[in-house]
């Protein structure tokens, strides 16, 4: 019975609390037990909705179980298990708490049946994941975390505004496929796309993830972007604009990854590239394309975590993450190298690994619909993936020039986690049917292993490798960073501030000079001797008009003398003051 079952998120939130009462050994068991139990729980869930509650007069549901939410639930918990196995060495509670809450919120977002519940979990994800960046405890990570959370607050606000308008327009909080094209759905779409790292709101990913901790980086790669992929599948399947967005992301990720020097930043850009494939599939919107997007998300989460684990092991053992500092690590870290290479080949959709049984589904779905441009861009991007992630990452980290670093293999639990993920990569690559069976959009009519298809893929990949080694001099690593769209709020923000500073503070100080200093001063001098001054100015005017200035000085002197001795009635001054006040009040309050 679904009503009596536990909510999978609840396990994670309870685990996050329980962590603070357990000793280290207990915590180590707990963080493995929670995802394992959640995985089992999800496998037992029957289709339907549960956990109803009321808010703002709406009937809301925290748990919607169908094939789509289940498959994401499976991979989220499977990945969580491997990530926590990888993170067994952490003694502090802080990071694990944030991770558990973050994953719990991601599961909550996936199982939420309505927009309001979705929004709540969405924001919890943004906040809790920020702590995984903060946990690095460096000046750079603090700043990156701040930018990260600001971008996500922006995305969250877009989502919230969209949800409010949507509820206002339709009277419904239901989260299903949106058919209405208009401001509400566009805002929701923008909110989702921010989390999917679609340009121009992409830079938070490559900015923040590489600044996260060793384990934090591994965990973050799976949840934020893939929750966004899930929500896009649920809400925006078949929206053609997503084909364009996906194609742009696939290419964008490659080009920036090639320019990059930091190994984890290379992998961050390849997330963007891979999510591009999925979003393109969502835009195509046929059952096969959507199945492809889901399957690819599943495979991607696993091999991407594996790649980040191998990069994380290198960072953990050497304290370095720049390609210019690394190289030749195969000598003392051969196992890490092998696992990393399996991940790198899987992401390149090398036959017999997981990417090969999932990604071509999306491309073939596009071909079925006759989208020549989609096919062309995604094939080029497929070649490019091998270039930037498949070869570049392992080559510059584990081979290339030996920099004399001699770290050993990482701790055993890290190797075990990588071995586990490598196994999953190979399993899905060789036996894709179990994965195909749980895909949500009808039965899968896709056969990856035809001789022709496999041969074509091998040709594509191996000649990409040839291009890599022939143009290696052009790919030489440099100690640089590459400007991305975060420039606008990092450098552009500063320029904007200094521009605004110059303009508005300029106007301010000018106004201060005129209205606060000079003008009142003159007024004060004038009203000091109002009657006398009025006469003096009148005299000046008359004499200038008549051209006769001979008597001017004498007359001014006599006016001054009279006014000094108070020869004018006080009433004259009062009258002028009243007139001045009247004029002022007319201008100010009219």
């Amino acid at each position, binding site marked *: 019975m679904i009503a009596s079952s536990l909510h999978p998120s609840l396990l994670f939130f309870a685990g996050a609390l329980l962590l603070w009462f357990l000793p280290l050994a207990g915590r180590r068991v707990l963080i493995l037990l929670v995802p394992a139990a959640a995985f089992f729980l999800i496998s037992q869930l029957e289709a339907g909705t549960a956990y109803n509650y009321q808010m703002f007069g709406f009937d809301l549901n925290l748990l919607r179980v169908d094939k789509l939410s289940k498959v994401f639930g499976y991979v989220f918990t499977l990945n969580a298990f491997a990530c926590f196995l990888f993170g067994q060495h952490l003694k502090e509670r802080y990071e694990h708490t944030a991770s558990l809450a973050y994953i719990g919120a991601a599961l909550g977002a996936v199982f939420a049946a309505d927009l309001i519940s979705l929004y709540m979990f969405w924001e919890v994800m943004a906040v809790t994941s920020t702590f995984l960046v903060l946990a690095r405890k460096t000046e750079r990570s603090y700043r990156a975390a701040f930018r990260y959370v600001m971008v996500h607050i922006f995305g969250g606000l877009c989502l919230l505004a969209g949800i409010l308008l949507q509820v206002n327009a339709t009277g419904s909080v239901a989260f299903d496929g949106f058919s209405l094209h208009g401001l509400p759905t566009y805002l929701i779409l923008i909110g989702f796309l921010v989390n999917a790292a679609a340009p121009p709101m992409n830079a938070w990913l490559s900015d923040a993830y590489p600044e996260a901790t060793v384990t934090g980086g591994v965990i973050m790669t799976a949840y934020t972007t893939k929750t966004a992929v899930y929500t896009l599948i649920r809400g925006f399947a078949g929206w053609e604009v997503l084909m364009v967005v996906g194609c742009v992301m696939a290419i964008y990720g490659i080009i920036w990854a*090639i320019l990059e020097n930091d190994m984890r930043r290379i992998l961050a850009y390849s997330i963007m590239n891979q999510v591009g494939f999925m979003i393109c599939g969502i835009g195509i919107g046929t059952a096969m394309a959507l199945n492809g997007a889901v399957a690819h998300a599943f495979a991607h989460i696993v091999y991407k975590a594996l790649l980040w684990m191998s990069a994380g092991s290198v960072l953990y053992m050497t304290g370095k993450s720049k390609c210019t500092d690394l190289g030749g690590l195969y000598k*003392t870290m051969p196992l890490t190298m092998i696992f990393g290479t399996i991940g790198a080949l899987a992401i390149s959709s090398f036959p017999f690994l997981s990417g090969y049984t999932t990604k071509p589904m999306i491309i073939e779905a596009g071909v079925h619909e006759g989208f020549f441009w989609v096919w062309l861009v995604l094939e080029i991007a497929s070649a490019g993936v091998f270039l930037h992630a498949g070869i570049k990452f392992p080559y510059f980290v584990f081979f290339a020039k030996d920099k004399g670093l001699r770290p050993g293999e990482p701790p055993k639990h890290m190797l075990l986690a990588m071995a586990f993920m490598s196994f999953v990569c190979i399993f899905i690559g060789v036996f894709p049917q179990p994965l195909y069976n749980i895909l949500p959009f009808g039965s899968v009519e896709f056969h990856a292993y035809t001789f022709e298809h496999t041969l074509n893929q*091998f*040709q594509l990949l*191996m*000649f990409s490798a040839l291009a890599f080694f022939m143009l290696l001099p052009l790919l030489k690593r440099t100690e640089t960073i590459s*400007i991305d769209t975060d420039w606008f709020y990092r450098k552009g923000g500063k320029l904007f501030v200094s521009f605004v500073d110059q303009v508005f503070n300029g106007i301010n100080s000018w106004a201060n000079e005129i209205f606060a200093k000079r003008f009142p001063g003159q007024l004060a001098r004038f009203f000091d001797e109002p009657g006398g001054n009025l006469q003096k100015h009148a005299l000046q005017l008359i004499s200038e008009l008549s051209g006769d200035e001979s008597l001017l000085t004498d007359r001014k002197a006599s006016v001054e003398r009279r006014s000094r001795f108070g020869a004018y009635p006080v009433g004259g001054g009062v009258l002028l003051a009243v007139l001045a006040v009247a004029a002022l009040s007319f201008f100010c309050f009219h």
Partner: protein
Amino acid sequence: MAMNENKKDAKVVTDWFDHPQNIKRLKIGFYLVLVLLVLPDLFMHKHTLFSSVEAWPGFYAVFGFVSCVVIILVSKLVGFGLKQKEDYYDRQ
């Protein structure tokens, strides 16, 4: 952040790639694989998706190679404008 506490150099397990003759073998093997991959194209009938060009022998080989060359050149070009020194954002 946690660091490797054992600063002593780990034992070198293998240095296979340091030997020029191994690299030479690797290269020969690699070129052999390339040839073997294109060879079947000459003898089999290939399906096409959009254009008859796809049925030409070695189409995907050329496609992959040219794609990568273009990608590398484009990113090199983009890099001229976008690559900055590492302290770019720290400078005032």
